[in-house]
């Protein structure tokens, strides 16, 4: 009877959230049972902190401290016992760095290393890279994305400057050559200036100037071409899109370079609109410069086109030459973000979500988690979603998104600025990923022709399951070792946050029964069966004692909703696992195509030899080796075709003797004189005899 009353009270708490009876409120710190082993993160070697490496490109711009230390030891510490001492010292330094950074220490790796292990300063000298250290806290997303964006923009700037340098050089060369050919360029003082100083006194530049002016042809630039080239040069030189590259011919612009980082969507759009005329002018100048540099600018054809050149002439590839706008906003600007992304501007938008379970709209924070899924519908927007704990692992996806020539959304769960959990930010963030509260995924519009290739959720732990499973190992009441596979759910994530303690109630161990079921099993029950059961989640307290907490219905509703959303992502991202791909008729690869083209090109031309009339002279033209023997004898009778091979142009333009002599002198014996056309030609008998060998 008493037991039934307990169960009724458990159900009552589940439905109403009102504790009573044996149920105790959760007022002390608890954590999900699966996170019990991770008490002291500084002692563990994991992905964080990371080093935001200076001047690196690609994935190397974000390095894990652990990976750097491993590299250092691999190269610096001898294998086996010999290197054990060094390894131990370096690991101790690594642990100390991790602790310092977790406590809020800031600085570069070399600085923090010097503070953490002054005695190991020599070892730090062997680190191949340096840069700011960043721990997995609520600022990480902003720092990592800004750093990766800088790295991508640096790469872009290098390509941009190479292009501009080349064009500036080519246009300058045209002007310089024109000057050398011009009247002023041939004046004695110009010649003297171009000569150098060593033997200057031994030359008579006046005489040289007179000689050059008389002899060399003058080919001055037409004024419109000069104007076009000078205008293009001016535009290229005073660009403000990237910092002027050191040591280039670009003039130091009087105006500072444009700013590309913004904290609101509207400011970014306004800046883009304001600079658009400058972009149009620059692209136009580059196109003109390309044509001029190649000598392909034809005024009659191109002038009209460039007169009408405006913002509608810009392609996405043109815009991709310029820096991307980086906009960092919080999750509550979703509407503006979607507007910005759908405009197709070259923007990279970082949306940070600090709080998934905000009390004002309890439940999974749908707006932020759905934002990334929503932009997939825009088709050509790169969408990348991750938690800050997974940013290091997924840095390749992040960089791909930042390099994408179009709008990109980077949605990151960065954790709350004000701690609401006893767990370190890394664990809270990892719990959001594990519990499917903030799943990671990537939508790359360029990755393939169908959704299965473009969309991936493979980065989530055990993506094929509803909830990831992990072994929980504990000692039971009789101190026997028990190992269970238990899932990590949204409810486990909620346990981490103190603000949700009211949704849980502790069941004293003596009242544990089979009437309560684990969260995942409860979610799998029929609604009718679920009404009679109460879900529980396993947690541990500060002393690592295992406890069961009853979960109230509101949180379970959120968990159910979260699972449904996850199913939606699975359907998109794991399509390739479930659907047998339709047989794809592979387009011939580039290599195969090239081979085919080469084969076609190399295939011998059809050697069509016209059938000669019985008595007419003829030449096996395809075998002619262009040696000029026959054309040297009579170039009206013998001529070259389009392939520069001989044929008989006019058999009556010469004598039979010409034909016979040509046949005799042709070393490849391809000339056949036929029969004489003029029976009265002198010496015909002898010639006919000589011609017999060539029939």
């Amino acid at each position: 009877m008493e037991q039934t009353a307990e169960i009724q009270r458990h159900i009552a708490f589940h439905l109403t959230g009102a504790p009573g009876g044996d149920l105790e409120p959760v007022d002390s710190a608890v954590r999900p049972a699966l996170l019990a082993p991770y008490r002291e993160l500084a002692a563990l070697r994991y992905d964080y902190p990371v080093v935001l490496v200076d001047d690196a490109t690609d994935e190397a711009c974000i390095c894990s401290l652990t990976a750097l230390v491993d590299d250092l030891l691999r190269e610096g510490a001898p294998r086996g016992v010999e290197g054990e001492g060094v390894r131990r010292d370096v690991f101790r330094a690594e642990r100390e760095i991790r602790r310092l950074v977790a406590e809020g220490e800031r600085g570069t790796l070399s600085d923090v290393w010097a503070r953490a292990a002054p005695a190991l300063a020599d070892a730090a000298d062997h680190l191949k890279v340096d840069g700011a250290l960043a721990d997995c806290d609520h600022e990480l997303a902003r720092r990592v994305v800004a750093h990766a964006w800088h790295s991508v923009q640096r790469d872009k700037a290098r390509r941009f400057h190479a292009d501009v340098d080349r064009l500036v050089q080519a246009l300058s060369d045209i002007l310089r050559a024109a000057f050398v050919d011009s009247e002023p360029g041939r004046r004695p003082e110009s010649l003297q200036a171009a000569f150098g100083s060593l033997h200057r006194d031994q030359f008579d530049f006046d005489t040289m100037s007179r000689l050059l002016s008389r002899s060399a042809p003058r080919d001055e630039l037409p004024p419109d071409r000069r104007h076009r080239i000078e205008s293009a040069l001016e535009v290229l030189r005073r660009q403000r899109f990237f910092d002027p590259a050191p040591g280039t011919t670009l003039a130091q612009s009087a105006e500072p370079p444009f700013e590309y980082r913004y904290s609101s969507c509207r400011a970014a759009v306004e800046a883009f609109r304001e600079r658009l005329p400058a972009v149009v002018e620059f692209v136009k100048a580059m196109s003109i410069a390309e044509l001029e540099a190649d000598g392909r600018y034809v005024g009659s054809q191109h002038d009209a086109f460039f007169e009408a050149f405006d913002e509608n002439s810009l392609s996405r590839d043109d815009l991709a030459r310029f820096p991307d706008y980086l906009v960092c906003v919080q999750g509550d600007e979703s509407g503006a973000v979607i507007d910005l992304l759908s405009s197709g501007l070259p923007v990279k938008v970082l949306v940070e979500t600090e709080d998934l379970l905000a009390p004002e709209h309890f439940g999974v924070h749908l707006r932020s988690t759905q934002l990334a899924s929503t932009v997939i519908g825009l088709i050509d927007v790169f969408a990348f979603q991750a938690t800050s704990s997974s940013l290091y692992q997924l840095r390749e996806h992040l960089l791909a998104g930042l390099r994408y020539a179009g709008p990109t959304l980077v949605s990151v769960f960065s954790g709350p600025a004000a701690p609401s959990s006893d767990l370190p930010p890394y664990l809270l963030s990892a719990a959001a990923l594990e519990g499917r509260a903030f799943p990671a995924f990537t939508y790359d519009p360029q990755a393939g022709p169908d959704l299965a290739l473009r969309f991936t959720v493979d980065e989530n732990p055990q993506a094929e399951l509803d909830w990831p499973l992990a072994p929980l190992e504990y000692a039971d009441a009789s101190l026997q070792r028990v190992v269970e596979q238990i899932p990590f759910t949204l409810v486990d994530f909620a346990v981490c946050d103190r603000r949700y303690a009211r949704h849980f109630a502790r069941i004293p161990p003596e009242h544990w029964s089979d009437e309560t079921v684990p969260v995942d099993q409860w979610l799998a029950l029929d609604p009718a069966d679920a009404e009679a059961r109460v879900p529980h989640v396993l947690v541990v307290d500060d002393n690592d004692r295992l406890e069961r907490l009853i979960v109230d219905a509101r949180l379970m509703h959120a968990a159910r909703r979260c699972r449904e959303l996850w199913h939606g992502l699975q359907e998109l991202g794991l399509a390739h696992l479930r659907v047998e791909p339709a047989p794809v008729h592979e387009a011939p690869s580039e290599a195969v195509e090239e081979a085919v083209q080469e084969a076609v090109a190399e295939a011998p031309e059809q050697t069509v030899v016209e059938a000669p009339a019985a008595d007419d002279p003829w030449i096996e033209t395809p075998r002619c080796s262009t040696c000029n023997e026959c054309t040297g004898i009579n170039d009206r009778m013998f001529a070259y075709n389009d392939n520069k091979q001989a044929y008989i142009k006019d058999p009556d333009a010469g004598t039979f003797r010409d034909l016979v002599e040509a046949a005799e002198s042709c070393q490849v014996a391809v000339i056949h004189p036929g029969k004489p056309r003029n029976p009265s030609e002198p010496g015909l008998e002898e010639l006919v005899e000589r011609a017999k060998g060539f029939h």
Partner: protein
Amino acid sequence: MTPLLRQCLLHLAEDHHSLEDYEGGVPRWCNGCGDNAILAAVQRLCRGEDLSLEHTVFVSGIGCSSRFPHYMGTYGFHGIHGRAFPIAEGIKMARPELNVFVNTGDGDCCSIGAAHWIHAIRYNMNLTVLLHDNFVYGLTKKQASPTSPKGLRSNTTPRGSYLDALNPLSVTLGVQSASFVAQAVDWIPQVLYDIIAAAHRHRGFSFVRVIQRCPEFMPGMLDPWLQDPSKTLLLTHENGLQLSPELARIYKNHREHDPLDIDAARRLACTDEEIPVGILYRNPEVPCYEELRGAGQARPADRIRASLEAELDKFTVWPASDERAAA
């Protein structure tokens, strides 16, 4: 405006060339000279590939064959004796996007230019090299060249040359980094064209030895091969030379040879009686020097000046340090 339309407009002024566009001056070679056949084949290639005139350069040294650049309508550089290779390499380093051809004779390449030749093979820069081999110095009126047959009486060897001829094919195939070696003869124009075209498409140092007639100073020397097609061994392969039915009917002596097989190529290169014609060796994997060195970067005047200053500074004795030393 779509990007496609814009590209079309930008490429509006692109030309398509006829063979005449590639013709320069009127050749002054003797009638019957094999150089004429090589010139015709090269001009056909330029037209076939529609090579832009201003992006194509012919570089030569000294000799009959080295007049070649004069007869092309493209850019050209008639260099000094034996130095065609370094000039071509310089052009390629400065302007890797250009189509660079080298025309060199047996004297120019195999004698005075031999050292440059060996290292040009090593560098494997993307050049198309045509060795016009007529076995004699023709421009200087019959002097023995390194490829002259043993016993040739010439102005420099009145009692006949004493040494066996140098074999340009086996030399080239013996140098590290050789990537394309072929042999053609001037009297089979179709094959000559095909081989030069394959050489041009190869990315690397494409060495084509063209055996050619010199009717003035070596008359009749090649008659046995001209008159008897069976003495010419055509090397065919799906990745090499392929014969038209017409040619296959005339030249019945052909053999399958895989251009990737360098050992077989070396054996063929040393064949005496028959003249092997075709692609002996082709390896597209050998890296090009200009790519290894990142050639073609813009060198504006101020950067060149800064680099020179930096170099010179290394050897400068600064007055200030003198003063300090004196103090």
